[in-house]
């Protein structure tokens, strides 16, 4: 049996630890809730406690899962000759499907995330709620976090372009993102390559 002094120390430790844990859990709970009036009021404090060490986002294919394929194609220019578009994603995908433990799968992840960042993906849930309905809001157009992420995505895509074209001795390279939306559920028996396709072109990049 611990002595009275030890019991006091234990009780104080328990109360302090339990209070700190409950405070964290209450804050984390609020942090993880969808946008709501209480959160709007406390968002600054809430974020200050959770960032950077406890920042978390458990959307995990929610509320709606990603439903598009992003294929990166690159063309290179030597003098006045412009080469064909070359698909640099499909070979990585094929390897990833064959072997889940290939390092090429990690390069695929980088490529995919760079394209998503360039296209304006955000983890900021306020944007997800507000911006599809009011895209012209200043917060939706000029969000510095989005701008920084988009810049990062563009840099990495251009770096991938440079690495691809430098092997061909090219002076310029250009990346293009092919956004493929597979057939919807009602057309599920169509081949997967059918569906809508959209292209997003990046500017020409000088090859160092």
């Amino acid at each position, binding site marked *: 049996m611990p002595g009275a002094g030890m019991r006091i120390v234990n009780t104080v430790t328990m109360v302090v630890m339990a209070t700190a844990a409950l405070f964290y859990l209450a804050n984390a709970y609020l942090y993880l809730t969808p946008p709501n009036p209480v959160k709007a009021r406390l968002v600054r404090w809430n974020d200050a406690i959770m960032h950077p060490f*406890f920042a978390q986002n*458990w959307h995990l294919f929610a509320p709606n899962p990603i*439903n598009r394929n992003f294929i990166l194609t690159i063309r290179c220019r030597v003098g006045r000759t412009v080469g064909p578009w070359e698909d640099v994603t499909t070979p990585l995908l094929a390897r990833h499907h064959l072997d889940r433990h290939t390092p090429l799968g990690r390069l695929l992840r980088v490529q995919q995330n760079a394209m998503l960042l360039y296209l304006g993906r955000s983890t900021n849930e306020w944007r997800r709620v507000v911006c599809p309905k009011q895209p012209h809001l200043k917060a939706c157009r000029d969000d510095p976090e989005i701008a920084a992420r988009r810049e990062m995505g563009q840099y990495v895509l251009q770096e991938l372009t440079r690495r691809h074209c430098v092997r061909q001795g090219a002076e310029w390279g250009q990346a293009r993102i092919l956004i493929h939306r597979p057939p919807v559920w009602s057309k*599920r028996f169509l081949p997967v390559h059918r569906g809508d396709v959209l292209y997003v072109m990046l500017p020409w990049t000088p090859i160092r």
Partner: protein
Amino acid sequence: MRLKRVPLRLLAWFTTEHWLIGASLTRVSLGLLALYYYGLHLSVRHTLYGPDGVWPLSQYLLDASPFSLFRYVPPSAFEALYAAAIAVAVLLTLGVFPRLMTVLHWLFVWSFQDRNPLLGDGGDNFVRIILLFLVLVNTGAYLTVMAPRPRRLVETKAIVHNVGVLLILAQLAYLYVSTGFYKVMGEVWQNGTALYYILRVEEFTWPALARYITHNPWLVVGGTYGTVLFEVFFLPALLNRYTRYLVIGAGVLFHVNIALIMGLVTFAWSMLAVYPLLLTDDEYRGVVRRWRLEVFYDGWCPSCVRSIDLLRSLGTGLVRYRSFRTVPEIDQDRAARRILSRRSDGAIREGMDVLIQIAGRAPCLWPAVPPLVVGRVLFGQRLYDAMARRRLVMVPGGCDEHCPAGQASGRP
């Protein structure tokens, strides 16, 4: 009166360390995950994290975290940094100074994730937070290469340990409940077709299997609603004594499927790494008790003794081997014919069944289980009997020559 006792009971509960086995398993699992991660990235480490990688150091340093080691280590020391990260993961797995290694491992995980944010997924995010809580936890009680030190139980440390584990479990529950509620809001999760759309995205599919799922409405709707139900009801089911094993089993199955079909191996591993904490020490001990086995072999048979020595070296300590010649309460005639085993509940098995039991209790012998089971089903005990009859038995102080098995069996 009972209410008055609640604080005392709480104090008594908090001042005893719980989940020690689960905490050690979690440490090992997180260490192995880190080794897998570093190993997977080894051949492409320069592209992913190197000074001249796709996101070069010069760009990264413009907005690097103050806690990132990449900020302070010169580019020329990149290889040393990578090697140090691997060394820390090895030491964490082995349980060498586990608390210190957890802190260092968190520092490396934080640094690498910050260095290349294009690689991260929910699993990486989860591990980063869990490691912070794991610093509070005593993860070195089991599965460690360090010699056990005579340690005085410091009750305040026990309180910190228990709170750390509870925070990890709460974080796991938050993850499931949070994503579950977000999914409920999504249109395709509501109409039951979310799984179809996910498996149509090339990055998250396994074409060889996906087509059988995406063409089948039962599998798509079942998988979609099953995911939401699992996530939303994870916490209440875990707290219920009748459903907790079901929900733990469902969770394991769920994440194994995510790893296999969607190819998100590290995500699934990150989540499963904390699953050992869902079981208490008593539950682990109960499993070990149920799995403990006594095997009675023929100590007068040299080849049997050699085989048992080999099995002992491969085993996990769950099987205790004894020569039946020294255990009078065992039916000597029966034991002389076939190797016998006795479980903790007293159930006796013999011959091939014992070999299957032994192989099932040693991970390195698991590959032998299927052929043994097939042999048992096809030939019964005949294969074993054929070998047992031909064994040589040397009776100590008995026969001068080798005695046949049948002759020796009658002697004590």
